[in-house]
């Protein structure tokens, strides 16, 4: 039986070594401001706490324990040295409001990271504060809006997103007070230019794209798209989720993107932490750079310092309590130092090699790439529609069964336009042997689907729990233990 930490709780039990012994007999706070009953936090010993959470950890798949080819998420190795670098006392103990005179160490790192990301993306300026990809997207959308407003171009209320786009793109549009307009993707995974021409117009604020796209192919007609949108007075936003595919080989700035974000937790290998944190720095060309959020870091003859709104009047402003996820930025910086220029180019080279190789192995085995005539990028999509039709075993079933084989499942059912989709991203840090083992597992499961479909449909069988009922979870909502 699964015991929560609350099941282990007993009144008055505690981790005594954590007791702060300070004399505070007198209570200077007014009675009516005080809490009447203590919060129901667990009351356990230190060993119980350590054992409980250690054992919870052991129930997770993770990069450190399993191949984790979760498409669009770039689950590459997170170097331990990088974690160490950011977990140094000098960095951890720095209060965010420490004056710059006593913060030159961290500011130097951030400044150099800004420059590095400018170089890597081909942008004029980079601001590091956005705290994940989605906040980077919002930043970009707001900058585009601010630009049009600045030009008294108030009618531009629409932003174009491909049907295959990540959910954050349209959600971001709404959050920025823009209307998301969908544009079709053609049979080869490229944006349909006719469809694009139809939606583009005087209301177009811009377009959000990633390249390679979420269909996992390189958008070949990027120049044409850029021309169409720019000609209509719109701007181009680059969603950097897929930068791992082209790192050091093609720069979004060179593709005419005006503004972009990076996902440092993907391309720059900062740990995903069971859901986060990330960092989504935003870069912009000369046109849009003035609108970047604050604060940014500058270097003067007196050392490094902050740029705030007083010197960046066009900025869309602040997006976080302090300076975003500095600890993640330091990790990305440390990682990039170890890679260097060549290391970065090798990232894209081997991420792409691994994806193409695995796609080939799977297609040789009879699986169906979503775009069989295209190169895979750093990832690729397969459709299990035919398998599902023939055996009744769905992509979801395949995914669950893969867990029993010791592999985290790929991203399932995304992009939505590919039926029974697996989006598979092996990343550059996995070995050929691991890819082969994954392909072998897929082949074995296909055989199971043909001979014993129930085995697959009832999977997983070797995890801490069997397949969980998500419908019940919504119907009988149970979101706290009390």
């Amino acid at each position, binding site marked *: 039986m699964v015991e929560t930490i609350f099941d282990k709780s007993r009144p008055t039990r505690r981790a005594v070594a954590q007791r702060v012994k*300070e004399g505070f007999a007198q209570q200077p706070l007014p009675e009516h401001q005080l809490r009447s009953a203590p919060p129901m936090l667990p009351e356990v010993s230190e060993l119980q706490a350590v054992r409980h959470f250690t054992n919870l950890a052991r129930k997770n798949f993770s990069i450190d324990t399993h191949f984790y080819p979760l498409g669009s998420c770039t689950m590459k190795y997170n170097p331990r040295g990088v974690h160490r670098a950011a*977990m140094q006392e000098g960095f951890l103990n720095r209060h965010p409001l420490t004056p710059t005179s006593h913060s030159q160490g961290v500011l130097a790192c951030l400044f150099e990271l800004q420059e590095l990301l400018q170089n890597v993306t081909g942008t004029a300026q980079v601001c590091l504060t956005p705290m994940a990809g989605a906040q980077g997207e919002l930043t970009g959308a707001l900058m585009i809006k601010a630009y049009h407003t600045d030009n008294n171009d108030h009618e531009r209320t629409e932003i174009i997103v491909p049907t295959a786009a990540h959910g954050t793109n349209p959600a971001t549009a709404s959050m920025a007070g823009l209307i998301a307009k969908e544009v079709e993707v053609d049979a080869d995974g490229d944006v349909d230019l006719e469809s694009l021409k139809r939606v583009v117009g005087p209301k177009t604020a811009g377009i959000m794209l990633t390249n390679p796209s979420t269909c996992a192919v390189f958008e070949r007609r990027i120049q044409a798209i850029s021309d169409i949108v720019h000609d209509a007075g719109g701007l181009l936003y680059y969603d950097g989720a897929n930068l791992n595919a082209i790192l050091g080989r093609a720069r979004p700035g060179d593709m005419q993107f005006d503004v972009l974000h990076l996902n440092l937790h993907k391309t720059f290998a900062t*740990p995903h932490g069971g859901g986060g944190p990330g960092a989504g720095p935003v870069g912009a060309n000369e046109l849009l750079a003035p609108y970047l959020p604050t604060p940014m870091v500058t270097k003067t003859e007196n050392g490094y310092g902050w740029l705030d709104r007083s010197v960046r009047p066009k900025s869309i402003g602040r997006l976080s309590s302090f300076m975003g996820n500095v600890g993640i930025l330091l990790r990305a910086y440390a990682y990039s130092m170890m890679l260097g220029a060549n290391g970065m180019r090798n990232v894209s080279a081997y991420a792409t090699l*691994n994806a193409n190789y695995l796609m080939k192995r799977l297609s040789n085995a009879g699986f169906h790439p979503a775009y069989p005539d295209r190169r895979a990028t750093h990832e690729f999509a397969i459709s299990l529609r035919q398998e599902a039709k023939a055996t009744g075993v769905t992509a979801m079933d395949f995914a669950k069964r893969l867990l029993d084989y010791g592999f985290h499942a790929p991203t399932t059912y995304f992009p939505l336009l590919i039926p029974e989709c697996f989006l598979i991203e092996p990343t550059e840090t996995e070995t050929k042997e691991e890819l082969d083992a994954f392909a072998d597992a897929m082949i074995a499961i296909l055989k199971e689907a043909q001979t014993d479909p129930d085995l697959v449909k009832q999977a997983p069988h070797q995890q801490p729990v069997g397949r969980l009922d998500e419908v019940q979870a919504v119907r009988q909502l149970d979101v706290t233990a009390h």
Partner: protein
Amino acid sequence: MPFIPHTHADKESMLETLGIASIADLFDEIPDRIKCDSLPDIPDGISEMAMLHHMAHRAQEDASGVCFLGAGCYDHYIPAAVWDIASRGEFLTAYTPYQAEASQGTLQLVYEFQTMLASLTAMDVANASVYDGASALAEAILMAVRVNRKSKSRRVLVPASLHPSYLATVRSIVTHQGIELELMTSHEGLTAVSDVDLENAVAVVVQHPNFLGLLEDVDVLTNRAHDVDALVIGVVNPMSLALLKPPGDWGDTGADIVCGDGQPLGIPMASGGPSFGFLCTRMIHVRQLPGRIAGRTQDKDGNHGFVLTLQAREQHIRRAKATSNICTNQGLLVTAATIYMTLLGPQGLHEIASSCVHNTHRLVDRLTELPNVSMRFATPYFHECVLDFGESTEALQQRMLDNGILPGYPLTGLIDKGDQAMLVCATEVRTEQDIDRYYQELTNG
């Protein structure tokens, strides 16, 4: 090739399988014109050893001294077990628990976190985090406007005593959805309830303790807002809730949405991030709550297990109509905070909060022994206090800094005569000697 495992033989055999001559061929769909074949301004890679040597040097530059700074980020002690466990590979290098059966560790932990936060705030439900306190407030305001169907207005009242960065962040984010922010004036550092024109407000924000460390009259504010059907959004320091009346109990019916920054719960200051924002609400509003939510359910054998639930609110399903665009959140920090709260328990948290209150009051008592130092506001404060130093704090701050003391947050431009004032804070880690040193350095000046 750091972190790339391929041997020459691996590469050759993979290329052979692919029937191509070189990796470069794999990039043949990229138009040549936009290819770049080097990154000339980026130096060569270095070893982990050299990188850590460099980073150790940088980190040492920032070792800045005894911290009396607060203002939204607090120097609390973090038990060693917290990060030892949070740094385990299975927590550190997993992602959002999309495959529930392979992520029961993260999911159960989030469920436990939700329970703790809900109890701490006296609300029904919490999410699995948003980015930070400031963005949590922005999300809370957007949510309030969605939730409050009674009101057609988009006018949200915000206290003048709100953390200035929170205000700035909220401004950047929410105004694009046509929300009007209006500042409520302050008297003596407190929201001037009688001045507030609540008519037509969709929501009222209450920060408590407020940015200046003062305790607001939350009961009155809450009741008055509810009288006109405005929602109440509480912005709270979770550590304070070990002592203070939780937002769910404010006034007659409690706040409707509660948010804040989780940093005090076991997160290192670390230049202010990563931390995490939390959002709690009543069960009736749960479908408008943004962010991940873990729920308990069963497998086919009736075993309990945990999944992400109510996903239909989220961007990956609902897309443009989602409650928020948030995807990656601050999971690792939630992990740390959950372990932290577990190690402390209700009693431990109460003692730490009390110790902070005690130490700051002790500091204030001590410093105001000096003739030129005085408290700016006369009302009760929690663990931060605005002190007036009777002179510009600029030189004073620099002198203290050079002697290894971070004396507080200068309020220049933020309050009346702010250039003479600093917001000071002494948490449980400050000792009597630290307070003495502050006093001595001040008198040496």
